[in-house]
């Protein structure tokens, strides 16, 4: 940290590429220690995924042997069976539906609410804002049972909407916190001058605040989509009909059904994991900036 921070300005004044900090043995040692540490933790982070991929490409006999990471006879058979015969395409679609609905609703509902909290003045603003934040400390398990009973009364238990609505509300504290912070960093002169020009409240919200808060919006979309895609606790006690299963529940059902076949199980796990990893990688740039904004704010 310190070394690079200090050397940067010096490098900028001197010759750009040739001149570097003198390489004495100590910097070489410390550099290789740094590299080793970083590589080690990368290996630790990747460890379970390596075995997940490894098992998913082994056939039924080879997976029982265990032991070696690289499959001797790599096969796509397990993967394609899981996708088609075990209906993982349907579960994938269910998961996609629940996650998309939840994410879109979170962004729409809490962007609007946070705009009000950050920008507009109305009675009860502070009290409501605090109420939303206190919810951050209510354990999910406290509301789980009442939610199930309530949804039973409302006849939405077991439907995807029965999952989406509590998921949306469960994201409320985080979303309100993050987006209110983001909106309040927008200079109020922008809003005032737009109002002078005759723009309505909706217009100001949609064409000034939303675009400026894009990193925060993408961050909250990711912070919603990731846990929703992986959600297990409420889904498990809500969904009864196998046709409505999301991927985590289908995975669970697969494990409890029979003797564990790890190659099939890991292929299914891979189907669950890969989309969310791709989504994260594609939006990661905004995510880091969005989180930084949240920390600074």
């Amino acid at each position, binding site marked *: 940290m310190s*070394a690079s921070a200090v050397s940067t300005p010096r490098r900028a004044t001197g010759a750009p590429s040739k001149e570097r900090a003198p390489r004495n043995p100590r910097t070489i040692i410390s550099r290789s220690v740094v590299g080793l540490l970083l590589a080690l933790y990368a290996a*630790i*982070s990747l460890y*379970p995924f390596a075995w997940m991929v490894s098992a998913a490409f082994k056939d039924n006999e080879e997976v029982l042997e265990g032991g070696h990471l690289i499959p001797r006879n790599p096969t796509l058979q397990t993967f394609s069976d899981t996708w088609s015969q075990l209906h993982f395409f349907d579960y994938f679609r269910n998961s996609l539906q629940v996650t998309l609905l939840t994410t879109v609703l979170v962004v729409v509902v809490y962007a609007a609410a946070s705009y009000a909290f950050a920008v507009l003045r109305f009675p009860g603003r502070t009290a409501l804002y605090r109420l939303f934040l206190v919810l951050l*400390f209510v354990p*999910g398990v406290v509301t789980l*049972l009442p939610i199930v009973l309530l949804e039973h009364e409302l006849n939405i238990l077991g439907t995807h909407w029965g999952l989406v609505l509590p998921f949306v*509300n469960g994201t409320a504290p985080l979303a309100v916190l993050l987006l209110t912070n983001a909106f309040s960093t927008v200079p109020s002169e922008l809003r005032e001058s737009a109002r002078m020009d005759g723009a309505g409240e909706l217009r100001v919200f949609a064409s000034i605040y939303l675009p400026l808060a894009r990193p925060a919006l993408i961050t909250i979309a990711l912070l919603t989509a*990731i846990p929703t895609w992986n959600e297990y606790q409420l889904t498990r006690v809500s969904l009864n009909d196998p046709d409505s299963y999301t991927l985590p529940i289908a995975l669970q059902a697969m494990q409890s059904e029979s003797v564990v076949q790890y190659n099939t199980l890991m292929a299914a796990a891979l189907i*669950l994991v890969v989309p969310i990893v791709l989504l994260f990688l594609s939006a990661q740039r905004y995510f880091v900036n969005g989180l930084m904004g949240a920390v600074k704010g």
Partner: protein
Amino acid sequence: MSVNVTPTPRLTSRPDGTSGKNRKVKPPSSPAARRSRRKEALWGFAFIAPAVILFAVMGLYTVGYGFLLSFAQWNGFWPDWNWVGFDNYADLLWRSPVYSPIVHDAAWNTLWVMIAVPVLTVAIAFPLAVVLNSVKRLSGVLRSIYFLPYVTTGIAVYFAWQYILEPNGALNLLLKSVGLGSLSQPQGFLGNPDTALPTLIIVMVWSAVPVAMLLFLTGLQTMDSSLLEAAQLDGAGWWRTQFSVVWPLLRPITAVIVLLNLRDSLQGFQIFLIMTNGGPGNATNVLGLETYRLAFLNELAPTLGLASALGWILFVVALIVAFVNQRAMRRLG
């Protein structure tokens, strides 16, 4: 600002247009300004309405319902609740010979998790962030790799860990191949009551490090670099700088990380539910999991009230922990 009557009569009685109620709002307040304020308030209500309605139904209603249920006995099918006052709380905490020992054991396990997970997470994430911040090349790629555990935390990764930790799984084989065969676990790491909880704690830390690392990293990148240069000019070496300048400056971020992890350790139970279901025996039972079991896995036994009471105990503990954490961090700072 409430539903004001037409402004005209007011105007004659008070030239500046402020009513008693509006005193807090700063003058000048012409009728036009007041109208625009009222309009702004209406827009405010319109913007928060969907969030508040959802919150009222899914948040307030369910929290209130759970609170009431914690004073009753019910199995979900009886037509009526059987009111029992504080009996559920007393049974859980000390009175019932069936439930209180389970709760005590679960509380100890939860306490271990609450101590170990935040401490280990900070102990790994802080150096990792410092080191990652010092490299230019590959830092983006490394950051993505380090973040994978967070993105995938859930049943899929827990199953992969189970696969690794089972008796002839990858970890035992790895230990044997590097000559640490004595550390391997013939029953699997989750099958031995002595290793099950530490193993789960390590998996939890593995999942918690990414967010902590990213928060530390943002703190490092927004840090005023002149402070670091000043420390170096004063002759502080690299280690000294990290301990005496960087670490204290990042204390607010450390506080946030500790709080988030305390909350998750206290309330989270998904990993326990999936990987061990509290076993072997009750070696990995935690309070969150016990609440879930009382609520959903007890079939027809009338334990729904007990479940709600235990949930509320968790809520109160969470608030106390948050408060203490905030005070402690302030005092240290």
